[in-house]
């Protein structure tokens, strides 16, 4: 039954990548086979390693090579603070800011009612179990400022407050180096609403 060629199988495999259609898949396949076989071996090996060794951290749900990721197992982190983000890349951005010293929870998504993505699909039961452990005293809701991100923050905020834990939403404003003239008015409105003493 299996009469597709090895080349065809490669193209079809590449098409599983987001944003890769038949044309790009074909271009990638020819590039790897014609010009960079060594690169192809590297990719294959890296993918195999990653798939075999990367799991979800059992505490924060982020991708990790260990059962408990380095952030969660660090003794220098404030375990009473929990920051909830949508994706691993959001975590990286926030952590690089260097001002936050608490722990994280990575949802790996956001509530999106019209796509059928509800609380279970984004690991909310695991977050609830974490809150029930009793070590977290404040939750910082750092989901995106999209309607879905807001809905997610609101939903989790209710769960947090129901446990008598403090919930806060990160503030949004004008980017540093951003000129007011070129900042959209919603951002400006929020920046004004969230102003602080100077």
């Amino acid at each position, binding site marked *: 039954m299996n009469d597709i060629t090895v080349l065809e199988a490669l193209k079809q495999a590449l098409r599983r990548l*987001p*944003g890769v259609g038949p044309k790009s898949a074909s271009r990638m396949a020819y590039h790897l086979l014609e010009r960079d076989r060594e690169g192809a071996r590297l990719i294959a090996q890296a993918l195999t390693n990653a798939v075999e060794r990367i799991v979800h951290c059992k505490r924060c749900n982020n991708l990790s090579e260990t059962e408990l990721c380095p952030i969660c197992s660090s003794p220098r982190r404030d375990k009473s603070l929990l920051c909830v983000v949508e994706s691993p890349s959001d975590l990286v951005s926030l952590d690089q800011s260097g001002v936050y010293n608490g722990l994280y929870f990575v949802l790996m998504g956001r*509530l999106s*009612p*019209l*796509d*059928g993505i*509800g*609380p279970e699909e984004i690991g909310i039961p695991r977050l609830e179990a974490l809150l029930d452990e009793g070590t977290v005293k404040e939750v910082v809701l750092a989901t995106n400022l*999209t*309607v879905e991100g*807001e*809905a997610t923050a*609101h*939903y989790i905020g*209710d*769960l947090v407050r*129901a446990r008598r834990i403090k919930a806060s939403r990160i503030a949004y404003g004008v980017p540093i180096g951003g000129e007011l003239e070129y900042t*959209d*008015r*919603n*951002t400006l*409105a929020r920046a004004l609403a969230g102003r602080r003493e100077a």
Partner: protein
Amino acid sequence: MRIHQQPAYVLHHRDYSETSLLLEVFTARHGRIGLIAKGARRASSRVRGILKPFQRLLIGWSGKGELAVLTGAEQDGPDTSLAAQALYCGFYMNEVLLRLLHRHDPHDALFEAYQNTLQRLRHDDTNEAVLRIFEKHLLRELGYGLVLDRDVVDRAPIEAQAVYDYIVDRGPRRLAHLELNLPTEGIRMRGASLIALEQESFAEAAMLRDAKALMRAALARHLGDQPLHSRKLFRRVVATATGDVMAEAGVDKAGG
């Protein structure tokens, strides 16, 4: 076909490629349309922040058929985002519109009703009533308007104190005294609830409950078997907020 400066709301958006968005949009004069917003996901995109639900926009597009291409979009009026429970109500309306509207069927009056409902959701915390009124307008605009002002058998005006049996395809029929203790096939409600829905003013909680049961049944005809995702989530939210997990199971029974 090129269209410019059309009042519109985004009903739903989905990532289309690394840089583009697929939009379902509700417009004033062209009804629901599907659009590709090329480059809208790039950090440099000027429309990135505004192509979101519940925000009145002026948009342009070109092309016809199932998917046209967005050629321009600007925010029309102030930021009109919804918060908290109103946000879930907004998702619910959008999901219902996506399920019931066909592309390219113009619905001017429904656009007006949708816009008014969003406005009310922002200021009014009696969300339930606002949603029932929207549903009433929606059914009427789709050609399935409910009879709310008279008995369908004898055409007599609805009496507040009488009890009616409402069969969705027909309308309300006043129950005779002897029938009150017998099972009937429709939804049973007081005349006052029908009048409240007709006049869009709900003085008592029981009126809202009746209206909800009636709307559930009426919409179920058109929504089919697939449950609404946003309704499920909304129920969860209400249950979480009130700490009442049983509400999740309870609410759904009404009207099926």
